[in-house]
């Protein structure tokens, strides 16, 4: 009894974890279902059909490819622009610093639907045709702040003496940057880039207002929710989950091995 009371907080924590994981398990289980009819809500019988033919659904894999492509370009764009801003903010004192910080903070503190509607209204009135480019522009815009925040934290926590040491050893500014600064900041840039990729790939709200008739993967899922969800959506969801967990675990293992070696 005392043991239970002492670990009450752990039980509550485990319950919370179960709440977080439950939908993923449901998605995984229902990826092996063979539904009667169009809706995959009720368990009928076990089948691996959807796993064997993941691209059998019209337009689904195309939308998946498009989402991956946009996420890749948006990540590159946001990471390059965001890293530059992060260096400026972390390394230099200049007049517009406060305003810049505010401008970086605002997109993260704004409900997505507000940003989505205003950018959509602008494109509409400038007669910019909606599609690939408007989606990409919007995604770079909202990923930018997250990259700046991630990279800035890393640059700020870096010991400036390491760069001074490199300069004392006659490294040129470029050499110092490439061989000392960049490797040290790399984890920050990597986490900013990963975050952008995930945010862009999964974004629905901003894309919905700026895509026109172009269909990304989240938009495909949204549409299918009305028409009937194919089992293949669960397959993609499960595969994404498994791949991401493997990547994170591999990263962790690599990191700890590197630490052990050092």
């Amino acid at each position, binding site marked *: 009894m005392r043991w239970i009371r002492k670990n009450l907080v752990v039980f509550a*924590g485990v319950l919370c974890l179960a709440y977080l994981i439950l*939908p993923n398990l449901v998605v995984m289980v*229902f990826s092996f279902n063979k539904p009667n009819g169009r809706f995959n809500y009720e368990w009928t019988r076990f089948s691996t059909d959807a796993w064997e033919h993941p691209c059998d659904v019209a337009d689904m894999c195309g939308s998946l490819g498009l989402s991956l492509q946009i996420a890749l370009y948006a990540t590159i764009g946001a990471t390059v622009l965001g890293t530059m801003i992060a260096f400026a903010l972390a390394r230099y004192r200049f007049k517009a610093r406060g305003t810049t910080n505010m401008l970086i903070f*605002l997109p993260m503190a704004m409900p997505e639907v507000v940003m989505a509607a*205003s950018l959509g209204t602008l494109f509409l009135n400038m007669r910019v045709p909606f599609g690939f480019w408007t989606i990409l522009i919007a995604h770079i815009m909202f990923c930018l702040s997250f990259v700046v925040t991630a990279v800035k934290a890393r640059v700020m926590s870096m010991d400036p003496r390491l760069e001074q040491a490199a300069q004392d050893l006659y490294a040129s500014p470029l050499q110092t940057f490439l061989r000392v600064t960049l490797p040290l900041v790399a984890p920050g840039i990597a986490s900013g880039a990963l975050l952008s990729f995930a945010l862009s790939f999964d974004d629905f*709200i901003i894309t919905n207002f700026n895509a026109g008739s172009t269909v990304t993967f989240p938009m495909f899922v949204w549409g299918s929710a009305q028409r009937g969800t194919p089992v293949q959506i669960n397959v993609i969801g499960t595969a994404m989950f498994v791949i991401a967990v493997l990547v994170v675990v591999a990263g962790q293992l690599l990191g700890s091995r590197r630490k052990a070696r050092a």
Partner: protein
Amino acid sequence: MRRAAGRKRRVPYWLLLPGIAWLLVFFVAPMIYQASTSVQTGSLEAGFKVTWHFATYWDALTEYYPQFLRSFEYSAIATVLCLAIGYPLAYTIAFRAGRWRNVILILVIAPFFTSFLIRTLAWETILADGGFVVQTLNQLHILDLTSSLGITQGHRVLATPLAVICGLTYNFLPFMILPLYTSLERIDGKLHEAAGDLYAKPFTVFRKVTFPLSMPGVVAGTLLTFIPATGDYINAELLGTTNQKMIGNVIQSQFLRVLDYPTAAALSFILMAVILAMVMFYIRKAGTEELV
């Protein structure tokens, strides 16, 4: 020499230029443009003109204030639930997890990787009328209780406020847990021991030491949950009915279906203004030195 110094002074501006230009053109300019759109009148065929028609704001408010109120109500409840549910988990990861810490952190972030929409659709399956959850709640007569409170209707959960709030709580929970964990992790365990040595009971330690020290995480977490939850329309659309529509649903349908851009603009402007005002007030009241 002086020229070199001048060039050096310009470095931060060159670094800022492309990114800030992007934000000015695609974030700030649209906001300003949105302000002008909200006072325009006209139609899609005839074109829109700025006529300083402020009545749009008034009309939008009088017509859609139930959705506004509902948005703030649902996301406030979801935020409180996130705090109540997420705190024990963040606490467990920070102080009790030991070598499981990284595994649990991965498990908290991992659900993110399955698409937001797919996971929300999974809640339809979980909360389905004949499903295990609803049957259990019925057998325990919990749904009778919640129905009398007006959160559910009859013996079902789907298409009720409870389903929407459950979805919101679920979707934004990681945004609460991660900042809570970050601020809890920074607390020195010796403070707990010291409080214990001074004969504080565990709950007193929590109330007087742990919780106050985790305030930066509480403030950041509640903001990160409340703001996106207020603007969300996916949960209300997929898990609710027209009776659970939130303001995001209205903006979406005004923009994409009705094509009434001035109303959509006015609504999103009101939403933004109210949220900014609430956030300012909240940070003043509960804010810590780290945050503003």
